[in-house]
């Protein structure tokens, strides 16, 4: 829950503050909770504070896995970062030809 939005760090400022950019809109936020964030990183912003960093590689993996077939019933397409991805699961999914009734 909680309105939080990915934004790119475009300028680092004093006192753990930074200028972030979302779609061309810029806002000053605090990086106190994400001290390792650097210029160009994407952070998740909530009530004026960055609460975490966004991992671009994981984002790509997640996008690729949307709707992918489950490869192995015993070792399902778990997206957890602790389990390294099987390269085969990132292949495009076989689309189910059945149209979804709406």
């Amino acid at each position, binding site marked *: 829950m909680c309105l939080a939005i990915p934004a790119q760090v475009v300028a680092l400022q004093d006192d753990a503050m930074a200028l972030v950019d979302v779609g061309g809109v810029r806002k000053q936020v605090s990086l106190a909770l*994400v001290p390792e964030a650097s210029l160009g990183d994407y952070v998740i912003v909530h009530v004026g504070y960055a609460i975490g960093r966004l991992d671009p590689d994981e984002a790509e993996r997640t996008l690729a896995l*949307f709707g992918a077939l489950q490869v192995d019933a015993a070792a399902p397409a778990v997206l957890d*970062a602790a389990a390294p991805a099987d390269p085969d699961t990132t292949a495009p999914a076989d689309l189910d030809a059945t149209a979804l009734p709406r």
Partner: protein
Amino acid sequence: MKYIDEFRDGAVAQRVAARIAAEVRPDRTYRFMEFCGGHTHAIARYGIAEWLPPAVRMIHGPGCPVCVLPIGRIDQAIRLALERDAIVCTYGDTLRVPASAGLSLLKAKARGGAVRIVYSPTDALRIAAEHPQREVVFFAIGFETTTPPTALALLAARRQRLENFSVLSCHVLTPSAITHILESPEVRDYGSVPLDGFVGPAHVSIVIGSRPYEHFAEEYRKPVAIAGFEPLDVMQAILMLVRQVNAGRADVENEFTRAVTRDGNQAAQAVVAQVFELRSRFEWRGLGEVPYSALKIRPQYAAYDAEARFDMDYRPVPDHKSCECGAILRGVKRPVDCKLFGTVCTPDSPMGSCMVSSEGACAAHYSYGRFRDIAIVAEAGA
């Protein structure tokens, strides 16, 4: 907008929906609770229910901190503004919550109470610095996502020696709420919770990590899929839950790997632990008293604790007799099951917690879903 638009792609939604439809078993239903208000909002706003096969039912959980904020706490904030002459700084979400005596913070403002809307706790700090002769209280609501900023603001107040600044802490905890649902009265009646799994909150999990959910998965044998905030995230998490249920598994899976790790944000957890401690009990609107479910400010920071500073007591106030919010928050009734829904209780005149914020189950259904209850015209005239 990067990392937002890609996760709202309708064409990809078709793919995920097709997978869900293909994998649900014909002989059963799947009841999943999305705990987080943001997910409730996303499901309603993007019409995700329309993408799901009828076998999958989404139950809206109590993950909306405004919805579960009891009347007694709003009363405290109103008293601070009207009786103690404090400037009460609050997030916009709480403004219209109806409290006792027909008041809300908005109405208190109309009566001369100094109520200011802020976007961030730093705004409250600034107001305190600008009005050194006035008491300034930050009304701190929210789950674990919102708590670290409050902690930082309190520490900043101490550093800047803002002696007129204090915090009314109403921060609540997600795991406690989930446990409460899993141990609700209905469990005793039916022997089990009528839920097959949870869609775990997105941003809370950035802070607390995925580890705290492992307890539920294990203890209550319910799978959890932590989902990102966007509609594709939610749909993928539902697919993951369907697969777990089919396989008879009860694990914690993480769909939101681009932002959530097992350990979460340690810096944020540390600053919260520094400033806050557990309350032994805290009343949740619609759920009654839940043990160890909320935070209060540690004694060494009592100077910045509004409850201590203003010597405030808490007076519980019951909800309307016919209000079904409790059952709705626990997932055992739907908004349309409540006698008050849509007539006495609407977003403009909310009676209970579920209607009060746009994240609440009843508000979401009223704004987005009620047209499904009545036959709706689909095609254009010409």
